[in-house]
């Protein structure tokens, strides 16, 4: 039990996108095209805009699909934009999406990936050890002149 370790990943965001039923696949495909690994989709039911749109509201499906994608900080804006455009969220009643910053993530990370990730740190440490220590020299600063 004691040899089990959890590696926390940071600098990630979760994008949540709520669209009408059967639109999720297009949104996920668009996200994958710009670098997202995949997505988790759940079914939901949502109302609100549908009622406010009057007669036009009947064209909006009450059944929704909720897409959740975890992405890294650097690819978040690109994925967000791609999903927005694929879901046609600029049209009324099509859905809504938002992005939250995550404190941390944990998942299975293969040992070789962990070793590779920690290698630069270990190398830098070894290099610092091997490098001869610089002798500290005291330098005297010129005395400040007091203004007239």
């Amino acid at each position: 039990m004691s040899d089990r370790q959890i590696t926390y990943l940071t600098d990630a965001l979760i994008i949540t996108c709520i669209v009408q039923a059967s639109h999720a696949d297009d949104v996920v495909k668009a996200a994958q095209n710009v670098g997202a690994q995949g997505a988790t989709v759940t079914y939901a039911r949502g109302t609100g805009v549908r009622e406010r749109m009057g007669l036009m509201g009947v064209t909006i499906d009450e059944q929704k699909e909720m897409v959740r994608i975890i992405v890294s900080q650097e690819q978040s804006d690109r994925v967000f934009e791609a999903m927005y455009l694929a879901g046609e969220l600029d049209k009324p009643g099509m859905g809504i999406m938002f992005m939250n910053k995550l404190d941390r993530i944990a998942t299975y990370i293969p040992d070789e990936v962990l070793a590779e990730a920690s290698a630069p740190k270990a190398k830098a440490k070894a290099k610092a050890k091997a490098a001869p220590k610089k002798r500290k020299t005291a330098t005297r600063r010129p005395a400040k002149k007091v203004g007239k």
Partner: protein
Amino acid sequence: MITEIGAFMHKGEGLRLMNELHGDKKILGIYVEAGRTEDLFAFREFGSASENDIVTILVEARHATKIFDLVCSKMGLDSPQSGMVFQMPLHTQPA
């Protein structure tokens, strides 16, 4: 400060985790949803997707790390294809 801990896991695991954790007094709420995922698991029942459970846990920020680690160990995240856990604050600290 309330924190949300979310976990993506195999189908059926969510209910098991909820049954194990619902008695914990540090947990304010725990919910399970069912969905499909494209990238977490190699076994795919439906074309490119596999069924999964999504567990949402609400917990006070001071207990978040403990509950997060507990969820990680219960899910067995040290073996492949076991899912993913994430944590996010539900409101930000005022400046």
